[in-house]
């Protein structure tokens, strides 16, 4: 890859020139930058695979009637779109950012466990292959939703087993990566960098890593029980055998709710780096931001049953989970206010990273509001399992996590490659994404309120017009992402030479390194005042 060759040419001293080149370089690398690149390319690929599945869904839902897919295949599409986007696109993308950025931002030469880092990445392509291969086995891919509730998941064909193995492998990758991240952050900070002087992106990943270690084993437990119910005669989730289908939901969501915070906290970290840089002003309320992130993470463990308000739990349970869920709005609001206070009385310019960051704040907050509405149990009873929920989580995951990933990519790619990206292309990518995103997902709020359930391949006529609008938006959004790929590819290949600090207001340690940085970022640790 040209990024790597650029390293070698920029630093003729490179006494590691004897490390392998070509394919073996990428297979055996223990370098955090190379591994970061691998994660990002993997995530980008999976993003497009998941995106194609989404277009399959929206094509079918363009009009009433069954035009393209059998209903069982449609369920495979919705399930795999979710699994691939969550585990194949968003999570690996953030790990890619962690790998690239954390060592540089704390003044370290690399991650603590460089070889385990390689293994963490290379588990993913086989896992993804298993997962996608499930389409081609008898019975097809898992079709029980990404949440694979029992007993439906115990009914499915061998595709479900492939999915379970894929989840195990991806979970192992995440746990190893998290151990690496925590050890690196706690032990390898440059002298003078106390915990409360770390960049916020590093804080958010530290906290995210603890969440991952806490909950990925829980997911492993849940899917293993599904596996044994399917093949080894257990009855964990089979009432006829003395088990409890609702227990699956408890175990899954005990993982599942922290999981969604795992997918958003690194995004908060990226936005917390981008906004101060482009406002040319320090992040407002640094300590509050740290405490707010930690509060969100701790609260995320006690809200899981808000995904289960209709299972029939006692009123006391519904009330507890309603109150706890509403509480998360407080630290989240604090973060939004702090970002705006950072912008307030700054001196802002709006290059692409800042466009995505500001767009993030607007649109993620809308997702936050619909989350608050869903937190209210009586309202949730109406909206659970409808398109309102689909709208909510796409607002926080796409306009949230994905836009933050775009912001971070445009922000840091000059550092990574040594080239500036094409600003015009970046702006087009932003505006088209913003517009088509809202065209796709805003009408879904109305669909949910009006009574359209989730996970159905065909719908009653009153839902037709908003579905048509959403489908058009989806195709527009999907096509717009090609601009991103083109822009990134062009930037890797060449472009205007990037300065060491192309962003006037940026002030973290990676900007003290050349663009692109040397193969081992900080051979001697910098001193932080």
């Amino acid at each position, binding site marked *: 890859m040209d990024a790597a060759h650029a390293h070698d040419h920029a630093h003729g001293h490179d006494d590691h020139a004897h490390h392998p080149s070509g394919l073996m370089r990428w297979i055996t690398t223990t370098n955090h930058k190379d591994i970061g690149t691998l994660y990002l390319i993997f995530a980008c690929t999976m993003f497009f695979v998941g995106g194609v599945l989404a277009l399959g869904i929206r094509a079918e839902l363009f009009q009433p009637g069954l035009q393209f897919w059998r209903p069982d295949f449609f369920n495979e599409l919705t399930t795999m779109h979710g699994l691939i986007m969550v585990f194949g696109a968003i999570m690996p993308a953030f790990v890619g950012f962690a790998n690239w950025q954390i060592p540089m931002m704390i003044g370290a030469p690399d991650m603590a466990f460089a070889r385990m880092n390689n293994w963490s990445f290379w588990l993913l392509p086989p896992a993804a292959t298993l997962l996608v291969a499930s389409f081609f086995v008898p019975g097809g891919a898992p079709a029980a939703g990404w949440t694979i509730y029992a007993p*439906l998941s115990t009914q499915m064909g061998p595709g479900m087993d492939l999915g379970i193995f894929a989840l195990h492998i991806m979970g192992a990758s995440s746990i190893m990566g998290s151990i690496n991240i925590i050890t690196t952050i706690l032990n390898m900070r440059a002298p003078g960098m106390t915990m409360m002087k770390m960049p916020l992106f590093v804080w958010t990943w530290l906290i995210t890593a603890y969440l991952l270690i806490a909950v990925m084993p829980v997911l492993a437990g849940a899917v293993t029980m599904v596996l044994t119910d399917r093949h080894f005669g257990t009855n964990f989730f089979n009432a006829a055998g003395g088990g409890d289908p609702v227990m699956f939901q408890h175990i899954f969501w005990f993982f599942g709710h922290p999981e969604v915070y795992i997918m958003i906290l690194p995004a908060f970290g990226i936005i917390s780096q981008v906004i101060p840089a482009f406002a040319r002003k320090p992040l407002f309320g640094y300590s509050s931001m740290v405490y707010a992130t930690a509060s969100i993470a701790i609260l995320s463990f006690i809200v899981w049953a808000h995904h289960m308000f209709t299972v029939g739990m006692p*009123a006391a349970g519904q009330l507890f989970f309603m109150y706890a869920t509403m509480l998360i709005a407080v630290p989240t609001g604090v973060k939004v206010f702090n970002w*705006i*206070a950072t912008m*307030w009385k700054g001196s802002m310019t709006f290059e692409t990273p800042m466009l995505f960051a500001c767009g993030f704040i*607007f649109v993620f907050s809308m997702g936050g509001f619909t989350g608050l*509405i869903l937190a209210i149990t009586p309202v949730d009873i*109406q909206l659970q399992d409808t398109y309102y929920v689909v709208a909510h989580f796409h607002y926080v995951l796409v306009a949230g996590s994905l836009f933050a990933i775009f912001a971070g990519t445009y922000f840091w790619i000059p550092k990574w490659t040594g080239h500036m990206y094409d600003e015009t292309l970046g702006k087009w990518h932003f505006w088209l994404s913003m517009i088509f995103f809202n065209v796709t997902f805003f009408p879904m709020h109305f669909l949910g309120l009006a*009574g359209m359930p989730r996970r159905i391949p065909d719908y009653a006529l009153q839902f037709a017009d908003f579905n048509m609008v959403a489908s058009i938006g989806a195709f527009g959004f999907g096509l717009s992402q090609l601009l991103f790929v083109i822009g990134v590819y062009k930037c890797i290949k060449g472009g205007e030479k990037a300065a060491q600090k192309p962003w006037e207001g940026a002030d973290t340690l990676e900007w003290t390194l050349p663009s692109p940085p040397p193969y081992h970022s900080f051979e001697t640790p910098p001193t932080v005042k």
Partner: protein
Amino acid sequence: MISQWARFWVAVAAFAPALASADRYNLQTPQTPIAREIYDLHTLILLICCVIFVVVFGTMTYAIIKHRKAAGHKAEQFHENTTVEIVWTIIPFIILIGMAYPATKTVIQMKDTSSPDMTIKATGYQWKWGYDYLTGEGQGISFFSSLATPRELITDNSAEGHKKREAQAHYLLEVDNPVVVPVGKKIRIITTANDVIHSWWVPAFGVKQDAIPGFVRDTWFKVDKPGIYRGQCAELCGKEHGFMPIVVEAVEAGKYTQWVSEQNKKALTNVAAAGALDGKGVYDKVCVACHGTGAAGAPKFGDKAAWGPRIKQGQDTLYQHALKGIRAMPPKGGAPDLPDAQIKAAVDYLMAAGK
């Protein structure tokens, strides 16, 4: 200035009635006291969120316009203020308490299923509902409720197909046997399931309760006025999840009594009439979902290549396969209520087409 504001509020006021009963943009018009409470709760919270949104993002927009480098603004360097942090933690917390109080009252009311006037059990099947009237007037009535929209209408993608679909007023929301209840009475619904988790949902009633195999849950409603109210299964339950709607017909007490006696009379003649449903009738209702499409490896109707080897196995073997299930096919094709004779008639029908 004043006239500008007046015009603004007139516009809002003109919009408001559209918001109030716009079934396209908002929750369905509530038809029970609980649904009304939920509707009002949602309106309250939505308005609070909108106000907060306008204030917060008005501020952000102001900053974007005024505090930009291109406008010549120089960056100040302040970066913390403990008072402000406390204020914008406490105020949202108080707003949340304001939302939680009415919500708590509604949760407790929704849970109170005591002293119902009648109880109906709704059992979720793959893929239809079964209803049993357990207590109260109508006790003993029992029937299945399946989607009435013909499969051909769903899969017909010709120009006439589209037109016919548009003309089908309750496309995908119609059933053969609706649940009939009296208005103004407290109806307790008990939910359970036969196979996987389903969910019984009628938006106009504000009622949604998961139907869990091996477990019994309950909920309740009291319908304000006569009418037909439609809902859908709200928990992914397999391939026909989108095709098992719920229809509740609420009628005046007198009409309800009439309906009950008609049902009781029908039950007596049902036993005799059961034999009247022929093989084709059973095929069209139950078997076509898989054998019409080839789903899950089912040998397609009329596919002589697939049926040849099966016919060779003999009629008795095929009867056993259909009655007991084979591979992905559940026993009796997932219609446990059908008598063996009718299943066999359907097998005969499929065999004849496959010769």
